[in-house]
């Protein structure tokens, strides 16, 4: 009994001592993604930038690698606008961006378009970036969220924010929802989902409030269609007025699916 008591006492004391170490360490919790409803009517550029900052270190997990430890360029340490323009001017640059905003968006959606020397995936000779495509799982950032991060990165250096402030009410979907609902959703379902047929002639709709989308590709390139959806006020068709809303909750994947559908749909005419 004496042996049992001694060994048991020693063992329990040691187990508890190990447990006590956890108490002297910083206590942090890794919160689960939450659904944030953003009232865009009340959104100011200041709060939009603040949202971008939260996303930078939160859901976007940018700061996990873009920090002083050198895993990726520490974007908080240099002027992002200046560096972006330098890289666009780099002879090795093969992307399609023409300004800082486009470069940052391209970096997030096509990280391997330009890989900073020394930061490529091991063995790729700096041709492949280890950075994820941010609108895919597990990050699943929406267009609005990507814009907010761009706004933050421009604002932190005192540069003018070129990203327009979103104007409609929308929901910033949490990571889980975006990726989980990556359930098979065709372009037709997306057109219904975003209510395109309410104003445009597309699918079975003959609506004429907006331009006919059945032959849109004969008039606009894929890039122009993309821009018209992402920023409806950019180009207004003759005889039409600006009533089309923006779709901040639309993911890049959804946008590309609709653009591809509209382009292909026309070819079948």
């Amino acid at each position, binding site marked *: 009994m004496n042996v049992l008591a001694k*060994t048991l006492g020693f063992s329990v004391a040691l187990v508890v001592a190990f447990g006590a*170490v956890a108490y002297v360490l910083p206590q942090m919790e890794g919160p689960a993604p939450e659904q944030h409803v953003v009232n865009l009517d009340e959104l100011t550029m200041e709060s939009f930038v603040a949202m971008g900052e939260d996303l930078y270190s939160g859901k976007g997990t940018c700061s996990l690698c873009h920090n002083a430890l050198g895993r990726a360029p520490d974007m908080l340490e240099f002027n992002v606008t200046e560096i972006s323009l330098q890289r666009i001017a780099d002879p090795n640059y093969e992307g399609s961006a023409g300004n800082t905003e486009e470069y940052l968006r391209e970096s997030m959606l096509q990280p391997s378009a330009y890989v900073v020397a020394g930061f490529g995936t091991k063995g790729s000779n700096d041709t492949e970036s280890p950075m*994820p495509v941010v609108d895919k799982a597990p990050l699943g950032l929406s267009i609005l969220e990507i814009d907010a991060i761009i706004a933050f990165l421009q604002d932190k250096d005192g540069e003018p924010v070129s990203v327009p402030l979103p104007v409609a009410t929308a929901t910033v979907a949490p990571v889980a929802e975006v990726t989980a609902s*990556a359930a098979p959703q065709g372009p037709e379902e997306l057109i219904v989902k975003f209510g395109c047929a309410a104003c445009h002639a597309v699918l079975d709709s003959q609506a004429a409030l907006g331009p006919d989308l059945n032959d849109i590709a004969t008039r606009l390139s894929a890039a122009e269609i993309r821009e018209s959806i992402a920023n409806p006020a950019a180009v207004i068709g003759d005889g039409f007025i600006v009533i089309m809303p923006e779709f901040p909750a639309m993911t890049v994947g959804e946008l590309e699916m609709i653009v591809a559908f509209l382009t292909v749909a026309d070819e079948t005419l």
Partner: protein
Amino acid sequence: MMAFITPRRIRRARQSAGFLATVPTLIAFVVLACGGLATQVSAAEGDDAVTGVSADEHDVARTTAASLSPAPTPQREDYPSIGVSSRGIVWVIAQMHLFFGALVLAVPIFVLVIEIIGFRTGDDRYDDMAHEFMKVSLTAYAITALFGGTLALALFLLYPHLMSYLMTAFGSQVLVYAGLFFLESMLLYIYYYGWNALRYGNRKWLHLTLGLLLNGVGTTLLVVANSWTTFMMAPSGVDPETGAIVGNIWEVMKGPLWNPLNLHRVIANVAFGGAIVGAYAAFKFLSAKTPEEKAHYDWMGYSSNFISILAFLPLPFAGYWLMAEIYAYSQQMGILAMGGILAWLFVIQAVLICTILLAGNYYLWTGMARSEGADRYRWAIKYIATVLILGFLVWVTPHNVIYTTAEAVKLGGGNHPVLGPLGIMPAKNIAVFLMLICTFLSFQLYRRADKVITVSWQYWGNALMASIYIFAIVNIIFAGVYYGYFTNTVYKVGSSVIQVMSTVVVIVAGVVIDSLMFRGAKTLHVSWGRVAERSQYALFALPIAFTWLMALMGYVRSSVRTHWHVYTVMPDKSADNFIPTLQTVGNMVTLVTLLFLAFLLFIFWIANLSGTRQLPVAEDARSQHAGAVT
């Protein structure tokens, strides 16, 4: 940010899995063949009878149907609740199952080795010891099965959508697993109960074959179960957009993390199992009444410690491979574990591993008292102890701590100007590899303690060994300092390879050189049982630290999935889909370790009880009377 999971990346990760894991892969391949066969048989016996479609059409139909069935996406209200944290329940039960599973799968591995040694040397002590080890394992086997069954029920009750998805992914493989479990049970019972009936001559060969089969089936069970775990961490054979199962069972199983985890768990299980039976031997030693009993259990404890530490030495390399593959699969996942919120847990890991190393070394140093020849090497102990303590201090130094702005200003930045550099991995790598080398040195000195080397070239042999130690230590320090602090981040990881190789060279060279130098050596008398009682507490510290460590690192491995049941394809929207605080983690790990300890004592008691025989009542009374008279 994280590395995007491209098919190319997964392919590369799979290729780099290398030949080390060929054995479990081959074993599992046989299982998969059975699984695939079972799938086809069920298809043939089921739908074919009605529809008359061919097997190929079945495959196409299955693929098509599967591609239309995305991973389920249950919402919070879809999760059953029984009023207690579902994660907490599954956490405790799963961990208990893993503890006991590790024990019962590991013990037969080294038992077979000990049995072979006994067979070759003709020394019955090995055979008896191996048999006694199996007694502990056998008792634990039933408890493993009970926890396994309870775990399955808990998972189906609390996470039905996840289990439904996993069942879809793995199909009839789970039935193969169940079949293997029956086979494992039969082999285990025959192996244990047939021990004395198949003890000598040709019958021994039959018994050894049974042991080999038992280990083959046991390891296969392990690697099959591992595939479920690694599928949840790095799913393969699925459509990345929807989570629909598009691959066959082999593609689903053979994810990029499967083989690294297989290797890591096999080695870790042996170290863990050795430590557990070491505690059993220590308990028996402390309770022993006669010098013979003390000598037997002292020897048993020494053998257990030898097994445990020997298996522990290569464990960091297996862990390194696993973590490297996690990084290759998803940089975000790797950084979350090593540099994010979970990184703090590695401070506790440092405490635990240092406890293991200190306990293992301390046991060896005190054990030197068994041999008079040990006096020749005692001078080295204080230097080894110094390196171990310094290594421990470096390992537990955090890179930074949370402080106020005023404190940060006073400190002159985010990191301490002197201790800051010790907080990053290069310093810790130097510390851990030097500690491993020192532990091997303790072993080497212990092994030499009862020998007088007689070969003519002993001077040159010792000089060569010392040179290898010096070269390795310099190499480890240089690689760590130069690549860790004076080059780009990319090269930091590469420096670990140099350090690993330096350590491996020391161990391999040490074993080879000693084996050659021990030829014709004079063996001094070893007094088994002549060891301080306090040394036995080191044998208790080992399994406790191992148990805590297993639970902790298991949590880290599981937690890197964050809010995903199956990473990137099936989100976790349950009430527990967050990473808890370190205190909560510490409490849970402490709880499961204490529970395991309680069950372990029960097992020791049961194992002891089986060897107790009550005397006939009259004889018992006489012996008591005689005792009273004397």
